[in-house]
């Protein structure tokens, strides 16, 4: 049963009498005073996450030179950007690396500078070297440009991330006998450590696992500024089932496509990263507000780290070989304690996602809402829920006659 609408919440936000709490604060509120009373009081719950998100990038328009050039090969600080759009439009992906990067030729490679770092430098207002090679046409005669640009010089710079805010993620371990260098960090052999990458009870999509409130047009905190959910993310295959303990939840597979104007974002919340032996990427800050439309929505926002579970996956064999076997589920409370038990062995844990920064994001979003400057937007369409039954298709290697 609905207890409040978006319009009612926004009216209260404008008046300054709405009640907004973070996804961490709501856990203890519900524990102390129950669902019904908390649902009566709370209008919005804010979430947050600050973690490496590889499927990120910016599209930008760098303006026309005289004479004009049609960008065929484009680099920003020597990092290649896409040359397959209109003359002076391009897309720079977070994981792109310079053509002369040694990559993994001496394993593990360092990947010290890539697309994520360029985005960080752009948003920090630093000059970035733009190099454009054209092949020369009657309308775009110029063949080459090298110049320096800053964020202000560019016409539009839009952060457009096809897959962010993964609802849940593997806890990565190494069952093999030698060190692994992965996007989940350095994994020591024989269960030497376990790395996870979700903000648990603060994580946006773990707090709305049935996508009751998040959809196309949802206004969010993105990279320190305002952004929007514009579609479901790629590989959005959400599912929810009960975890090992009664009332607990194992939700996984939901993702977001997000977009926002880079010019109002901050280098504090978009940080270039280098994963040893893996590559470059971008650490993205995202916070999603969840309107408490009814008790059911509140119930999921109030799940604690002890009630949220993640699967343990071996990155020596199971993950790279795409085997579906896992080593069981562990709760975020166990992960955050610093040690989990796998196959009877105590394994130290560490996170690739910053919980303290996620908490900061949820807090900033809460302040924005309470300040009346950030209103909720009702989605034009909700994202597919687990009931839609979306499942991932594997890629099979075959010839044209086998299709």
């Amino acid at each position, binding site marked *: 049963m609905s207890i409040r609408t978006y319009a009612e919440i926004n009216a209260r936000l404008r008046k300054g009498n709405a009640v907004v709490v973070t996804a961490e604060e709501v856990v203890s509120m519900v524990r102390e005073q129950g669902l019904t009373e908390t649902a009566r009081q709370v209008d919005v719950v804010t979430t947050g996450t600050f973690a490496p998100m590889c499927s990120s990038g910016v599209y930008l328009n760098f303006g026309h030179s005289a004479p004009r050039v049609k960008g065929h090969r484009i680099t920003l600080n020597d990092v290649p950007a896409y040359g397959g759009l209109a003359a002076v439009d391009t897309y720079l992906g977070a994981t792109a690396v310079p053509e002369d990067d040694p990559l993994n030729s001496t394993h593990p490679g360092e990947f010290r500078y890539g697309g994520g770092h360029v985005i960080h430098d752009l948003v920090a207002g630093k000059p970035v070297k733009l190099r454009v090679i054209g092949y020369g046409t009657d309308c775009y005669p110029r063949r080459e440009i090298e110049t320096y640009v800053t964020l202000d010089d560019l016409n539009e710079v839009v952060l457009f991330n096809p897959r962010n805010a993964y609802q849940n993620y593997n806890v990565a371990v190494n069952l093999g006998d030698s060190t692994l260098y992965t996007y989940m*960090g350095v994994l020591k052999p024989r269960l030497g450590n*376990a*790395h996870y990458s979700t903000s648990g009870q603060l994580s946006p999509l773990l707090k709305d696992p049935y996508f009751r409130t998040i959809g196309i047009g949802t206004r969010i905190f993105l990279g320190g500024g305002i952004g929007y959910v514009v579609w479901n993310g790629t590989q959005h295959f959400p599912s929810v089932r009960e975890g090992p303990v009664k009332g607990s939840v194992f939700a996984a597979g939901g993702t977001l496509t997000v977009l926002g104007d880079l010019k109002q974002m901050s280098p504090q919340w978009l*940080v270039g990263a*280098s994963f040893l032996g893996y590559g470059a990427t971008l650490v993205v800050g995202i916070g999603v507000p969840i309107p408490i439309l009814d008790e059911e929505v509140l119930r999921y926002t109030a799940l604690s780290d002890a009630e949220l579970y993640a699967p343990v996956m071996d990155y020596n064999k199971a993950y790279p070989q795409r085997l579906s076997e896992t080593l069981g589920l562990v709760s975020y409370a166990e992960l955050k*304690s610093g040690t989990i038990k796998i196959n009877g062995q105590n394994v130290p844990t560490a996170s690739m996602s*910053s*919980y303290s920064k996620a908490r900061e994001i949820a807090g900033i979003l809460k302040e924005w809402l309470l300040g009346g400057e950030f209103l909720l937007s009702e989605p034009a369409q909700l994202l597919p829920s687990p009931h839609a039954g979306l499942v991932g298709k594997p890629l099979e290697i075959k010839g044209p006659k086998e299709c």
Partner: protein
Amino acid sequence: MTPKKVVLRFPAEVSDKPLIYYLVKDYNLMVNILKANINPHKQGTMIMELSGDKFDAGIAFLESRGVNVQPLSEEIVRNEDRCISCGACTAICPSGALFVERPAMTVRFDGGKCVVCQLCTRACPIRAMEVKF
């Protein structure tokens, strides 16, 4: 006396000699080996903490045997502005110098426990850990 961190560089011809044994037996020094890379017939290095009344005599002994002794001047510093408190370094750090403070879940760095192995400088995705000479 508080332990001093020193770097020992062994020439190839003494790398198979039990010199540390004499530091303990003859000079009554307390040794704590933090890092060692010693192989027979090759130059070797060792980083250790040493303490005891006969510290200076012990060092003089090592030098008389051809060992180059220098105070540990390399140190690891954390760029506090860059660190995002993820935790990628914490399970990698062998000495517990990098750890998560709970329940705040912020990453702390205790330079006193650091053995300058430099693993964190490459494991940190943000490159917030730096070597200072």
